[in-house]
């Protein structure tokens, strides 16, 4: 399984700033995390990859299938969990999956039903298979979403903001599920929650203003921020000063003072202690530096 993206450009209207600007990317089997701030072009890329949108220029091939020309074939190999996923509230989990399975071309009844049971088992919804989805919690609905996305055993799974709205426990379960699924297919996770990719992705891409700013292993991105992450305890005035000089990643109240975690190129203040950067520190450092034009 290989997804090749070559010089992909998307403009929503003539003369407008491109939402994607000459993007080149290739994704192999495993989990690929797509990070980027709002407006970076993630959703546009996802829509193009999920065949809902046509590019202005460039090509996308999935295992050699041209996405623009062989849309139906691509769709049959594609699983997709949109960010705003819902199900018909009057259908049960089983019925909904049955409907989706039929639409995905699974016309053999027995095979389809077996696959539905597997998918329900995978996402832990077997017990509620006959409950109408209108009664599901957000987490159950999200799991139903992933079940429908993987129902037809797609080669390529696109998951858009998979953990938004989930509680921490659900989020962990979901990440584990994605990891399990990534063993035999390519998964593209588009998210702005760094934790989603740090725990699941072998490779990540950082998209900003339509261009791919980083492509590589998460560790590679982390190394960018080596020696740039600090922890310091300051008062309110100190917080304002640090916010101007650094990118504050975390703030924890400590009595009357504030314990800050921050990244940046500036000289650290007295009392600051260096810390090993994590992916989130690195992502913030990277993105903010990109905006400032100082990235490495």
């Amino acid at each position: 399984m290989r997804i090749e993206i070559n010089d992909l450009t998307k403009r929503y209207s003539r003369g407008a700033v491109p939402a994607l600007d000459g993007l080149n990317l290739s994704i192999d089997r495993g989990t690929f995390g797509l990070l980027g701030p709002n407006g970076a072009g993630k959703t546009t890329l996802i829509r193009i990859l999920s065949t809902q949108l046509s590019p202005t220029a460039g090509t996308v091939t999935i295992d050699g299938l041209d996405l623009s020309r062989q849309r139906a074939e691509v769709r049959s190999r594609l699983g997709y969990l949109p960010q705003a996923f819902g199900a018909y509230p009057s259908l049960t989990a089983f019925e909904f999956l049955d409907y989706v399975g039929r639409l995905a071309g699974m016309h053999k009844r027995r095979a389809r039903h077996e696959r539905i049971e597997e998918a329900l088992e995978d996402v832990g919804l077997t017990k509620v298979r006959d409950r109408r989805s209108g009664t599901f919690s957000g987490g159950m609905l999200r799991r139903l979403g992933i079940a429908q996305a993987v129902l037809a055993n797609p080669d390529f799974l696109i998951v858009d903001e998979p953990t938004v709205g989930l509680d921490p426990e659900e989020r962990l379960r979901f990440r584990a599920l994605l990891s399990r699924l990534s063993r035999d297919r390519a998964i593209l996770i588009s998210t702005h929650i760094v934790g989603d990719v740090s725990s699941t992705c072998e490779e990540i891409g950082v998209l900003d203003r339509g261009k791919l700013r980083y492509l590589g292993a998460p560790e590679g991105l982390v190394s960018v921020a080596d020696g740039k992450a600090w922890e310091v305890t300051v008062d309110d005035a100190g917080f304002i000063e640090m916010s101007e000089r650094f990118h504050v990643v975390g703030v924890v109240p400590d009595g009357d003072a504030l314990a800050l975690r921050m990244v940046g190129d500036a000289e650290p203040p007295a009392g600051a202690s260096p810390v090993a950067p994590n992916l989130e520190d690195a992502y913030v450092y990277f993105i903010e530096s990109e905006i400032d034009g100082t990235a490495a």
Partner: protein
Amino acid sequence: MSGLRGLLSVARYERTLLMRTTRYRVLGAAGIGIPIFIGVILAIAEARGGEAGTMFGVGAFVPFYVYSFLQTVVIAFIAGDFRAADERAQVYEVIAVRPLSTTQLVVGKYLGILQGLMVLSFAVMGVTVLVQAAKLSVLGTPFRLEPYLGYLLLMNLPGLIYMTALTFCLGAILRNRTAAALVALAYALGCLIFLGERYGGVFDYGAFYAPLFYSDILGFGDLSRVIELRLLYMALAVALLGLAVERYPRLAQAGLWRWGGRVVALAALAVCVGIGFGIQRSDEASQAERVDFLRAHVTRAAEPIASLVHYDMSLQLHTEQAPLVADVRLRVGNTHDVALGQVVVSLNSGLTVDSIADNAGSPLDFEHDGSVLAITLGAPLEPGAETQLRLKYAGDIDRNGFDLIRTAPRRDRSDGPLRMPQLTSWIREDTVFLPARAGWYPRAGVDYGYDEPPAPSFATANIEVDSPADMRIVTQGSPSSPDSASSNTGSRRTSLFTVDRPVPVFTLNGGRYNVYEARIGGVDMALYLYPEHMTAVSFFDDAADEARAALEQMLGAIVRETGLPYPYERLNLVEVPLVVQWYYEGWREAGGLTGPGVLMIEEDVLTSQNLQRSFNRRQRGADGEFDAAAVKRDLFVQEIFELFMSPESERYGIFRSPLVQLWSYDRAFVGDRSNLLERAMPVYLQQDVGSEVRSMMLSGGNSRPRGREESTVASAEMLAAVSDSGQSQARTGSDWNAVLDAMQKETFADMNPDADPELYRSVVDAKGVSVFRMMRAVTSSDAFVNAIEGFAEESRHEGVDFDDFEAAVGTDQVTAEGPSAAESDSSGEPDMQRLVQSWLEGTAVPGYTITRANVRKLEDGRGNPVHQVIVRVRNGEAALGFVRINAIGFEDEVSKGVQIEGNSEVEVALLIGDRPARVTVDPFFAKNRRSLVAPLRVPDFIQPDQPAEYVRLVTQEASNLVEIVVDNEDEGFSLPTRRVQRYLRPGLQGGGWWVRSTLFSYGRYANNYRMKNGSDGAEPAIWSATMPREGEYDVAYYFLPEATAWARSGVWGLASRIELTIHHRNEVHTVELDTTELNAGWNLLGRFDFEAGAEVRVELSDKASGRLYADAVRWRLADSDLVYEEDVSPWEVQTGSLSGRR
């Protein structure tokens, strides 16, 4: 294949989703509930003796109609929702990335919704079938499934398919669920309410206005046009669906689906346009053909008409060669002064003439142009001579070839795609329906184009009909000989008829009838009944003798009362399919279903009579002994009267009256006033004679003396027939006010019958029937009946005009009945010729008021008390009037016909031995709608005077009636209205006082009135007048007759108390009335003193809790001699028993 599976998958789940919605469940509940509800309502209506239509498709039609109507409206909300529902459920993106095309998605969703709604349709059909089948099994009537399937396939499903597609298309174009639903809803309602019947029904997408009443005899009839239009709508549905797919932009799709869908949609559009053009071209062609046919008639109208005096017809029905094969020998006479070179006859354009030969068998030249056949004789036919022609023709009836002129209202209803005259005549394997006008045999002359319609030919005939063996034939005449009239040879049967008594027209009916025959009163009576409708006949099996005796008695009574013996040896009553009568409307066509010796009855008429239930009811209500046969006899008589002799305003009127046969088929009516004899005389016979015979039969068979003249109350029934009742309006087309207006604008002679045929017909009824009633009152009943009898005898088979009839009645020789006129002055004696002249030729209509009614108790010279009833009647209009004044005692009654000049008053004295209770005045032709009534108070003492009867003119001085009536339409009536209210609600005329008119009104007051809900007293109704003379006046408030009943029953929320203030001599007097205590009509508010010239008024306050009515107020100069109560409640009249109105 996989594409189709995807489509069906979408359909399957869309259906599931739809069926789980609340809207669907509500629609389902309504759909299932409708047939049950309607079934219950019909059953209740039938149990109460109503005519709800037990048989046929009616039980299926009504629920389907209502449900289909509801469904196509609800579709707008269900089908317009599909995209929005996906987006709302946030599943759209999931679906959009599946290997699915737009066509699959849209068509799948369409099919899903369609399936869901079809499930409901089938359920509704199932429930309807169960309800109807259960009901019919109780009634012992066979059940048929065809009508139900017919309605499902013709009405329900096409409407469903089309409206769903339309809503999808609107949804795809407008991309707004609410907008799409509203546009679809507006379209549906527009079609259903406004466009449905117009433009030939092309907007009737659900066949809601198509003539789809199922007939047991004929099924649905010719459905070709209905089916064509259904196909058009279904093709349009496919095209709309194609457009919906095209306009639905979200899913990219493969070329096959995209282009395949487009091709199918375009092909459907082409089919749709093709069908539309086909319909239009066919209609235009048939219209052009009809114009051409008409031209042929008009062209030949000036040619002299040869008399066709005898036919020898040999007919073969439904043969392999043609539906009708005829060999007709015609005896043709020349009654003109010139020799005839050609014989012009009418013959249906669908019949092809093979040959025409003369006496010697030599072929003759002929030209068959449309439905006009011109035969060139070998030698001219000399005046007075006769010859014989032999015509051979074959073919089918062209239903375009007759009935070439239609009046505008009729054209609106009967032209166009859905109203093609498919049920006007036909020849089928199982049934034949050939009324005379279809032109199935050669008829003398042409049908159109004459300045004055010529007198018809009267002809005898021998008719031989070869038909399929199971077909029974009905035509004029009797079977040639009872034993050998019909002979069966294998699959064919030959029937022979001899028509000895000349008839003007021939009709031919055939069908698989059961025949019931009996000789009653010297007439062979036969009932031809469809086998499935036998319950109506078998019910009388055990009362056959009683029914026969009743019929005999009735025929005798009819002959006695009309002076018209039944002219034919045989009377055939033949069932014909339901709705046939739709195509025979208008009074000139009233006889379309009636022929000499043949009365055609629609099949629902007999079978819808729920005799058993009526019988059971009577049985339950009987105290003690119950004579079942007598009750059945009564039911039989009642049925006969309802079916055949009801007044025209009720049910079918004279359409199938045997009285029409008695009068109309034995003579021809000519001259300017021919309509009076042709139309008004049968109406008069039907209403007056019929009602007399009816009351005689239903009151136990005790014939009363003719002098009683029980039912000739004014023009009451006839005027009721043209009053505002919806039913009668449908029948006559004109309401009484329009008739009155028309009569006062134009003389009868000046009226153009074609300008507004319905109005003309109503005027003929109003004037003609009144004239006959007046003639009868003036000449005495016996004399009038004798005159009719003599006239009928002398005019048999001849053309007669109204002058002949007047001469026969002797209008110039008669005097009033009652005592000698010696004691009276001449003013009140009727001059019948003048009255006839005045009413028929004038434009004024008399109107009457009783101005005085009192009694003197006298002694007759032999020591016996006698009562002298003195009545003054004023004719307040310019027209010459005639009334009958009746003094009515408890045992006895005396009457006198009196003529009253325009704008004058007569005083009439009548002597009656019995103690008189009231006096009534029957107007014959007047603005009054009913009789006037005044109660009488008999003094206790005998006055010393000579009893005398007289009629004298009351001079102006002697007339002491000073009366002012202000009606709600008069100038003195006002409704002070707040400006703002008028601005805000301009629909309100006069503020919150709505104008209403009433159905049962008579006299001028109750015609219409104002109505308002009680409020704060700011909007009173005010009646104002100027007093002409000083004195005490009785002030009265007119209370709507209906309102008395409403007030007493508490319905309609009538105000229980109302307040009126009377302004007099600068004082204000307030009267509070309890509406439950009010009389129908005038209610005295009190006696008040007024100055001459004073501006006075009466106010009805709107401060009340409940509804108020404002109609009229009267100030009448008080006169101690007078007791007035002249307007009897019509409710009393309506509910009076048949045998005694008073």
